[in-house]
């Protein structure tokens, strides 16, 4: 892609002047991956910005069509690599909707617990990297210290730090190990004090305020028109959160607030995300109390959910089902289903279409990073080049999800 730079001129105080085109990225640390932005500049001011992506396009949607419904779960982890459990959940909810199966309450609560931990860890990565982009080095180290604790919990419960594939169609992959709730509880006790520490470093910091306040404003009308969702929309004053508006996985039983702001700038988005971390901890605390100590973590759906190991040794049918699930898969009825969850970045929707065969006809991910990024030119055109970095940071993009 090229820009006709030689034809572009701008009016300056001393007459017409030529603009310069600067190629930002794809190898630029503050683009959080391989985003390329063509910036047309008038001195230090951005005249026009054209985002260019696809450098990380791996054709995940096409690959899903060549796998069975259960196999495709492993691909969903790799879309938004800071929110693998949330992706698993969105995909499984869509397939469960297509199949028309319910998940046991215990599994639903554990799903909520895990996804909220994931939200905290994703916001921690966001806060650390965003702060380092704007020159606050130390916050990054503290954020990653706490994120490590969450990843240790994930490793303990799921066996994996990042690409967990823990949430499966019809429930969870495994019964969580003994003592996992104590570890989560320990983390939840420690975390509020740590969030206070980050806020102490940033919220009242004059340099931080100078770099973020009033930068990257977008009105609520524009944000809705450009299909923005998530913290970026909530910072504009629209309390749209899928967990409240279209509850899934028993979120309606949890008591939490949806933080909103009205300033709709980089500072507002920062405040919304920090408040969201606290709300997530609130949900986790309730989930710890709610999760029953015993009970099934998978629904009883023969032919869809793999049978328990013990049953396979004693029952012929269980063995047959197990063999059929892992060789040919299962066939949902023909139809289309769309399930949306609130990922740390916004509305993550999964569209699954079935033609009655064991492989999906089409899987589509409504990637919040991709759609929110669309508003980037609106945020930065007419502003300084230094604000570009702050704006990319507060949209909170994950390029794995943008390009899929």
């Amino acid at each position: 892609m090229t820009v006709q730079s030689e034809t572009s001129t701008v009016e300056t105080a001393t007459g017409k002047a030529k603009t310069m085109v600067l190629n930002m990225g794809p190898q630029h640390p503050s683009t959080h991956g391989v985003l390329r932005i063509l910036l047309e500049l008038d001195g230090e001011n951005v005249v026009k910005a054209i985002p260019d992506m696809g450098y990380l396009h791996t054709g995940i949607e096409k690959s899903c069509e060549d796998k069975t419904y259960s196999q495709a779960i492993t691909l969903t982890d790799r879309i938004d690599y800071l929110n693998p459990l949330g992706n698993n959940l969105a995909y499984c909810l869509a397939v469960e909707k297509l199949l028309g199966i319910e998940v046991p309450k215990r599994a639903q609560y554990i799903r909520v617990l895990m996804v909220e931990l994931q939200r905290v860890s994703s916001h921690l990565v966001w806060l650390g990297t965003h702060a380092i982009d704007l020159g606050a080095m130390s916050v990054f180290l503290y954020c990653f210290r706490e994120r490590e604790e969450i990843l240790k919990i994930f490793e303990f419960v799921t066996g994996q730090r990042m690409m967990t594939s823990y949430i499966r169609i019809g429930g969870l992959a495994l019964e969580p190990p003994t003592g996992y709730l104590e570890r989560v509880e320990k983390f939840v006790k420690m975390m509020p004090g740590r969030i206070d520490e980050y806020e102490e470093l940033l919220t009242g910091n004059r340099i931080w305020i100078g770099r973020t306040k009033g930068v990257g404003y977008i009105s609520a009308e524009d944000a809705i028109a450009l299909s923005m969702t998530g913290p970026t929309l909530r910072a504009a004053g629209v309390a749209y959160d899928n967990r409240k508006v279209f509850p899934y996985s028993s979120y309606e039983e949890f008591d939490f607030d949806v933080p909103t702001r009205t300033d709709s700038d980089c500072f507002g988005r920062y405040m919304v995300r920090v408040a969201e971390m606290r709300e997530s901890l609130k949900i986790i605390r309730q989930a710890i109390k709610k999760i029953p100590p015993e009970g099934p973590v998978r629904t009883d759906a023969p032919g869809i959910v793999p049978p328990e190991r013990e049953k396979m040794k004693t029952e012929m049918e269980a063995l047959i089902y197990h063999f059929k699930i892992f060789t040919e898969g299962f066939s949902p009825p023909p139809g289309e289903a769309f399930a949306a969850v609130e990922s740390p970045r916004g509305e993550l929707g999964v569209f699954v279409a079935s033609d009655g065969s064991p492989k999906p006809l089409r899987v589509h991910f409504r990637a919040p990073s991709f759609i929110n990024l669309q508003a980037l030119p609106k945020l930065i055109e007419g502003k300084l080049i230094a604000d570009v970095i702050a704006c990319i940071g507060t949209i909170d993009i994950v390029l794995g999800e943008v390009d899929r």
Partner: protein
Amino acid sequence: MAENSNQNTNVVVERLRGWSPNAVSEVIEFRGETTIVVPRNVLRDVAERCRGDKELRFNLLSDATCVDRYPLEPRFEVNYQLVSIPRRERLCLQVRLSSSDPVVDSLVPVWPGANWLEREIFDLFGIRFNGHPDLRRILMPDDWEGYPLRKDFPVEGYRDIPSIATRYTRNRT
């Protein structure tokens, strides 16, 4: 819950039918989701209604995607997932397109957020959107040939494309 959504659905379908009897060609109810199939020539008007009508107010375009039903005809289904934030409701608009003429009106004038979503569909399925301000490829390289998410495009791609290594050495000599 299901009854409630059924009731609401009727409101949407009735509003649209009341405005024009040709606006709705089929209503699909599946697992609590409502899909309204719209004839291609009235899509933009129906979308405008869905957003602007005081009773409907579908102000957020959540998603747009396409399904390729090759070798069936009409081959393509373009789905628009709408959300009404004030009314807390979802709706899916669907348009069916034949393989010989995969062209439909763009919804960018109605929801500016449709811009990249439609570019993605154009890029991966080769559907053209009339009136789109900037219909370019978005994920694939600009010089890519073919539409990768179509069912007649092989999953492993075409093998006769020279590898990156050979391209690199050819440029060097």
